[in-house]
């Protein structure tokens, strides 16, 4: 077993009781097998598989970009790209809402919101909040989808990569942990460029020296 090996479902990763199965793996008898297509990760005694594809699995505290898909009584349903839609309660908004008020006045169908995950019960029941810094409804711009497991690479160490893209294109960009990226620029060309760059990072996320490649693209040098 090697760290960062690519494994497919049903592939044996480790044998013996010295290891414990983590996310994306399962134990059968003595051996630990992968249950997903991804990279092997070892953390102490824990063996896990970091998925390379798949739906977003919500975690508490994540900042996500979502779209309002339903306006209900006292709450909104927000599509965050996971298997289940998330719930945004009326009380979790940043402004005061009167009882019986028309909720679509605040967030309507197809509105894009930047929200934070507050509570997750077994992937299923996901609660969101709009209370917090930078959490808001956004207007205009576009949303692109990337694989959730590649989000850390797009953000970079301490936000270095995303900062570079923002400065290079002059766009306003929000990267949700759910793999939805909101981009808004002054001109449409800026948005196109930011999109291109982000999709390139997603494609080549596992290569070395990506920061330099991206820097060159942003400065208009080579491809």
């Amino acid at each position, binding site marked *: 077993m090697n760290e960062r090996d690519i494994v497919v479902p049903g592939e*044996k990763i480790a044998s013996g009781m010295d290891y414990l199965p983590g996310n994306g793996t399962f134990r059968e008898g003595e051996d630990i097998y992968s249950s*997903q297509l991804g990279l092997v990760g070892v953390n102490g005694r824990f063996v896990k598989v970091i998925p390379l594809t798949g*739906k977003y699995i919500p975690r508490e505290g994540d900042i996500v970009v979502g779209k309002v898909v339903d306006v209900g009584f006292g709450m909104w349903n927000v599509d965050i790209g996971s298997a289940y839609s998330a719930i945004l309660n009326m009380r979790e908004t940043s402004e005061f809402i009167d009882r019986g008020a028309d909720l679509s006045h605040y967030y309507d169908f197809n509105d894009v919101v930047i929200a934070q995950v507050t509570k997750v019960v077994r992937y299923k029941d996901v609660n969101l909040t709009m209370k917090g810094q930078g959490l808001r409804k956004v207007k205009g711009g576009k949303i692109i989808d990337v694989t959730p497991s590649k989000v850390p690479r797009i953000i970079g160490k301490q936000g270095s990569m995303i900062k570079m893209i923002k400065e290079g294109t002059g766009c306003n960009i929000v990267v949700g942990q759910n793999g939805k990226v909101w981009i808004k620029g002054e001109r449409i060309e800026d948005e196109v460029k930011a999109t291109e760059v982000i999709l390139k990072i997603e494609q080549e996320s*596992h*290569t070395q020296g990506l920061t330099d490649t991206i820097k060159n693209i942003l400065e208009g040098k080579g491809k």
Partner: protein
Amino acid sequence: MSYTKRDDGRKFDELRKIKAKVGVVKRADGSAMFQMGDTIAIASVYGPRELHPRFLQNPERGVLRCNYDMASFSVTERKKPGPSRRSTEISLVTEKALASVIDLDLFPNTVIDVFIEIIQANAGTRCAGISAAAMALAHAGIPMRDMVAAVSVGKVGDKIVLDLDKEEEDFEEGATDIPVAMTARKREITLLQLDGEVTKDELMEAIKMARKGCEEIHKIQVKTLKEIYKNG
């Protein structure tokens, strides 16, 4: 009279030429193309996603929904488009061949949709479909206990052969077609159908041959899946 030599010059236990590709359908969560000789299947996976209408939801485990369809231009004589008695049956057996390896209990109230489209048919379409679907499911990141590979075996004349093509299936002295799907790790049979006549011994021999074929197919599936992330 007996069947001494295969028309396309293959050995009796040799598969047709296989080509596989992952990520062929852009908008799907996972997709794969699987080609065996002149049979081409494209599988696309969507989900897990919420299932509507709600009465179809299962609060204990997710639902797997397979849909097998042949394109009207996939066969020599134009096939009337739309579901038929045959495609409904194949959808059902495909679903059962795949359901046992997927961790459906992780996603209650949801559905995983698998669409299998045969764009070119030359016997063994359901097997190509299952092999493609297994790859597409892995590509969609769905937790699975195992991979599934499928191949058809059969008796042409008096010979047991692997991976029949259309000509062999229509062999004038009679041919038996046995599609087999198998899990890769535990080698459990998840699909076994039989059209024709065989003795018990012949069937056992055929299954043995299918096992070998499935192993080969599994190797190609694994190689193709790993290749997406290797280069570049």
